[in-house]
């Protein structure tokens, strides 16, 4: 019984370490972008410190978000909670709000496209002899549509330049 607890504890620890490594990797990529943009270099310790900082800040974020959702009598955290999390800085709140609107707009467009595609497929498959396959067709298509959806979002992701601009904005604030 004690051994079980020991291994569970160990597993949780290694899970934590893996997440830390993932955060460290992402922070490394982001710092590299900043370094090449500003023509400076970061020491390894600085990158490690920023990673640790981000990892610990996540705890505050998670607990705040959970409380916000519970306060609104929900068990699912939505974008409103995230907006509330960004309340401390005006420019940050403005940016997050804009980003949220962009996301909703994008979702609406994607849904409309998907619907249109589905309707097009239906009219096509209405051709005789293919009617039986139509059900399977539209089912097979939806994962593809989802994949395209994901890719679109990747492309939509912010360019580093835009982020830099925002950062300068917050700094000047």
């Amino acid at each position, binding site marked *: 019984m004690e051994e079980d607890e020991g291994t569970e504890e160990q597993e949780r620890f290694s899970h934590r370490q893996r997440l830390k490594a993932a955060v460290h990797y992402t922070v490394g990529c982001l710092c590299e972008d*900043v370094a090449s943009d500003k023509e400076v*270099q970061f020491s390894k310790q600085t990158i490690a410190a920023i990673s640790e*900082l981000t990892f610990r800040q996540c705890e505050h974020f*998670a607990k705040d978000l*959970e409380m916000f959702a519970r306060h609104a009598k929900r068990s699912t*955290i939505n974008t409103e909670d995230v907006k509330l999390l960004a309340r401390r800085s005006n420019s940050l709140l403005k940016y997050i709000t804009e980003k949220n609107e962009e996301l909703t707009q994008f979702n609406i467009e994607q849904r409309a496209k998907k619907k249109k595609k589905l309707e097009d497929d239906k009219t096509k498959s209405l051709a005789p002899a293919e009617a039986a396959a139509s059900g399977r067709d539209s089912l097979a298509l939806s994962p593809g549509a989802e994949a395209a959806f994901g890719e679109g979002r990747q492309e939509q992701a912010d360019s580093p330049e835009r982020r*830099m601009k925002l950062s300068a904005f917050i700094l000047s604030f």
Partner: protein
Amino acid sequence: MEATGGGFRKELVSKLLQMHFTDSKTKVSGDALRLMAELLTIFVVEAAIRSVRQAQAEDLALVDVDQLEKVLPQLLLDF
């Protein structure tokens, strides 16, 4: 290698948050995850850029922990 596009991946953000929830029933919507990934990215980039500014003010080419330490209080107050 889609992670090299910069920024946090949705899966990572989800796991980071889930680890600290006190209630296991708490869930996070997809859009909220994307927004959180954005927020975390801004946090990291801010930490980096403010440290760079501090280093430039001290006329240094290498950003070290000392510079990060100096900008840390205001950074934590802003987030």
